[in-house]
């Protein structure tokens, strides 16, 4: 599925332009302005139904690494693993970071991700075609931030891979990278969930 502006968003799949970052715990768009930090989210009260993101999602390597390191922010998000997508470039990031920090080999990590039903996917050419536009959006965000005297992040190749795949498929992403939420003001029409 492409994001042809003339066809409009597909309800329930492709978010509209400037789609807000959504709280993983409440499912409610976060009230973030410009480069202001995203406020800390209150923990759900006992008995409250979880209304966060649901699979399928595109998982960023940062989320998977946070899961593997028992980041408490990911505890309620483990149900997002089955049926979600992890791109091979992100899988490689998980592999090298786990090996670098703990010495565990990829063969010890990959079976667990597969057991959880994570869909390990190579980046299709259709997703790669979004790279130039994503980099342009990133540049625009950086230029805007500089003009405002603010510090802006940058998209790496792994970043644009995730976002390109998300744009192509219409799936939301789940990441710890807050820079991605700033890009919506510059035309990024991907739903970004922060863990």
């Amino acid at each position, binding site marked *: 599925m492409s994001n042809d502006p*003339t066809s409009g968003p597909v309800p329930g799949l492709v978010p509209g332009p400037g789609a807000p970052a959504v709280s993983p715990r409440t499912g409610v768009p976060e009230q973030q302005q410009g480069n202001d930090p995203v406020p800390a989210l209150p923990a759900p009260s006992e008995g409250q139904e979880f209304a966060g993101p649901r699979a399928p999602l595109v998982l960023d390597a940062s989320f998977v*690494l946070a899961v593997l390191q028992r980041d408490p922010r990911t505890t309620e998000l483990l149900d997002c693993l089955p049926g979600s997508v992890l791109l091979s470039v992100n899988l490689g990031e998980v592999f090298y970071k786990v090996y670098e920090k703990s010495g*565990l080999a990829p063969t*010890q990590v990959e079976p667990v991700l597969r057991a959880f039903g994570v869909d390990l996917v190579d980046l299709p050419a259709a997703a790669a*075609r979004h790279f*130039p536009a994503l980099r342009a959006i990133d540049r625009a965000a950086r230029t805007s931030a500089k003009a405002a005297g603010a510090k802006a992040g940058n998209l790496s190749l792994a970043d644009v891979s995730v976002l390109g795949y998300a744009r192509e498929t219409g799936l939301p992403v789940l990441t*710890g990278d807050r820079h991605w939420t700033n890009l919506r003001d510059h*035309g990024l029409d991907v739903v970004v969930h922060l863990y």
Partner: protein
Amino acid sequence: MLVFIHTWTYYPHMTELARESLQVDRLRRTTIPRDILTAAGIPPGSVLVAHVDERGRIVLESPQLLLEQLQDAIAAGIAARATSDATAEGRDPAQEPAGSMAEELLTERAAEALAEADDDNPAGSPVDDSAGGLPRDPGGASARAEVNGDGPA
């Protein structure tokens, strides 16, 4: 022998909770008796991971247990490596911060992206995006209008 390891309660000091015979048919298929699954605390619809251990036993485990084992192994590996590094460099291992792999990755990505950030196609230059339908005037008002479907006809 089939061994069910569904929670830490049963492993490694397993107490036998149920025992039944089962048949492997000509196509090497078998059905695990309901009583066995019930005794192991495995509800309908569960996903299990099977492997054969060094004693030739078929072990069925929940993915959750596998994840917990991996998380423990990673935590132990990180602690061991941090201790080794600190000792080698004359620091107190007890004072070494654990460090977040995710945060490290994001920091490395940002550095990589900064190095890659090109100025040969500065903001405002046209971007051929025939595949993605993204703004040709990135960040500009016309770009947002185009993406919104409000652009000029």
